């Protein structure tokens, strides 16, 4: 049963990557020959022809399309136009930094969002609960780059406590991580609170209390596990948003990561690099989504059964 589930997911990934790859392929060829926007103005006809042949842009589109996929399948991703190096090399030099930033963000998000949500649920109707919700709302409504800029203004330029750019040491992580996680902490907190409020009124919670557990035991042992199921789903759905946010935050803090790389590739119209980067990131996001999905159906038997029908 699990095998069928995995097979279906893999089929879906393949389909998705095909759609995404085709969109990228046709988009970059939609506005005439890409060479014209890549090469300097006033290039002579012979060189232009040579470049078109070099990039394999002289055949019919169907042939190019086929070539695009066979090259990808053989691991030939082309050369970056700016650096004249294989795009895969350029790309994978940056993935480490981005992965670290994302993991740090995830850790902070879970570490603050889940306990915050539980407290907000338990403190429902009290001023303290209101304060938690207000903070969450502010985190939700502040655009990440605005938050990043304000943090830099205060902690780098005014107080000189933290570095404003780069990724050299632990101190460099503080502001980017906070900036990127603010939105996700807020949204996870709100999800956890709602899920927890649902759980708090369940019969099994009353039973647990009746058996003489303290309020803390009831919530942590009986409530949390049940409340986490919708929360994990919500977290999984945020992966794409998280990557989108990272692109902006990396730009704010000159973080040497994938997002920063792709923004620069866009500004310089480095199509091969952008094409590869977008496909690779999309594949990674889709893969993470599938993993979350599978983990989720492994944890919750109800999902497994529903899927198998």
């Amino acid at each position: 049963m699990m095998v069928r589930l995995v097979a279906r997911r893999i089929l879906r990934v393949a389909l998705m990557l095909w759609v995404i790859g085709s969109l990228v392929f046709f988009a970059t060829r939609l506005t005439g020959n890409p060479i014209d926007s890549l090469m300097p103005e006033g290039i002579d006809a012979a060189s232009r022809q040579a470049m078109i042949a070099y990039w394999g842009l002289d055949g019919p589109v169907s042939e190019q399309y086929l070539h695009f996929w066979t090259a990808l399948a053989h691991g030939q991703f082309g050369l970056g136009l700016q650096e004249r190096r294989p795009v895969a090399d350029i790309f994978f030099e940056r993935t480490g930094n981005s992965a670290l930033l994302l993991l740090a963000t995830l850790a902070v998000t879970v570490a603050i969002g889940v306990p915050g949500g539980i407290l907000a649920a338990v403190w429902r109707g009290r001023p303290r609960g209101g304060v938690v919700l207000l903070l969450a709302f502010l985190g939700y409504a502040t655009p990440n780059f605005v938050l990043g800029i304000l943090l830099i203004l205060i902690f780098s330029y005014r107080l000189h406590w933290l570095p404003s750019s780069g990724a050299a040491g632990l101190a460099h992580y503080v502001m980017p991580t906070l900036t990127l996680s603010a939105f996700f902490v807020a949204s996870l907190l709100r999800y956890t609170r709602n899920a927890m409020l649902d759980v708090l009124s369940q019969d099994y919670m009353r039973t647990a209390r009746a058996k003489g557990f303290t309020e803390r035991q009831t919530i942590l042992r009986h409530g949390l596990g049940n409340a986490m199921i919708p929360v994990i789903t919500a977290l999984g759905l945020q992966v794409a948003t998280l990557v989108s946010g990272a692109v902006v935050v990396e730009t704010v803090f000159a973080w040497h990561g994938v997002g920063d790389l792709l923004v620069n590739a866009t500004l310089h119209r480095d199509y091969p690099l952008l094409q590869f980067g977008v496909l690779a990131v999309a594949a990674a996001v889709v893969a993470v989504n599938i993993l979350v999905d599978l983990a989720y159906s492994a944890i919750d038997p109800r999902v497994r059964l529903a899927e198998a029908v």
Partner: protein
Amino acid sequence: MPVVVPLRQHVLPHGIPVSVACAAALAAVLVILALAAPLIAPYDPATQTLLARLRPPIGFLGADPRHWLGTDQLGRDMLTRCLYGLRLSLFLSLSGTVIGLFLGTALGVAAAMGGRVADALIMGLVDVKLALPFTLVALVVIAVAGSGISVLVVVLGIAYWAHFARLVRAELMALRSLPFVEAARAVGASRTRLAMVHMLPNIVSPVVVMTTLNFSNLILLESSLSFIGLGVQPPTATLGSMVGLGRDYMASAPWIVAEPALLIFSVSLAVMLLGDFLCDRFNVRLRDR
């Protein structure tokens, strides 16, 4: 068990919380400022006065009383640029919202009413859209089509269609088997007529809520794209690009970024509060929590 008392909010007549009333007032002021920008702005947004560069806002040392909010690195009046930036930001986000609303609604109707193939095709596309980080899509579109106001409107327009499509489809599916729809079908109404006359009017409130929420998301998206330099090009500015371009002067002239940043924050805060309120108002399940 702790005694749960309902959160005591300060409410006005009609059950409108004070915070929401404040948000509405703030939103109204911002919209009026944006609409009236050409009338009330003291200067031209592109006029440079190089002799009056980097003047701080009134109240700080070295301020020029003619420039209430100071001047930027090219001596342009910050108040004027903030007003015009606000105007353009709101216009772009609104255009994107309207495009997304129509595109998504049309696709949602087609998916719900157009048969199984159309449904599978459209919902498959929705899945792809939702699994992709949208910034990547925006990067590709902008790399191909260049950056400019019309491209930006298109990018913002395709940012949230999938959410509308899914919502409209789900709502229509729920309506399809209700007696009044069946009655209409029995007297021979076409599928288009069923959708337009009998069903769509019944799903207005969730669509309105989603429109508000998407408008606030688009404000964030537009300002983010403009901030990283992919939005409108100078000298035209939106609030986001003012923050992005002002970054180089952040150490010596923090007001250049702080003023548009705070303005973006207040727009986003006001719209989000209103969106949250509408969401609670129309969605009974949420309201009871």
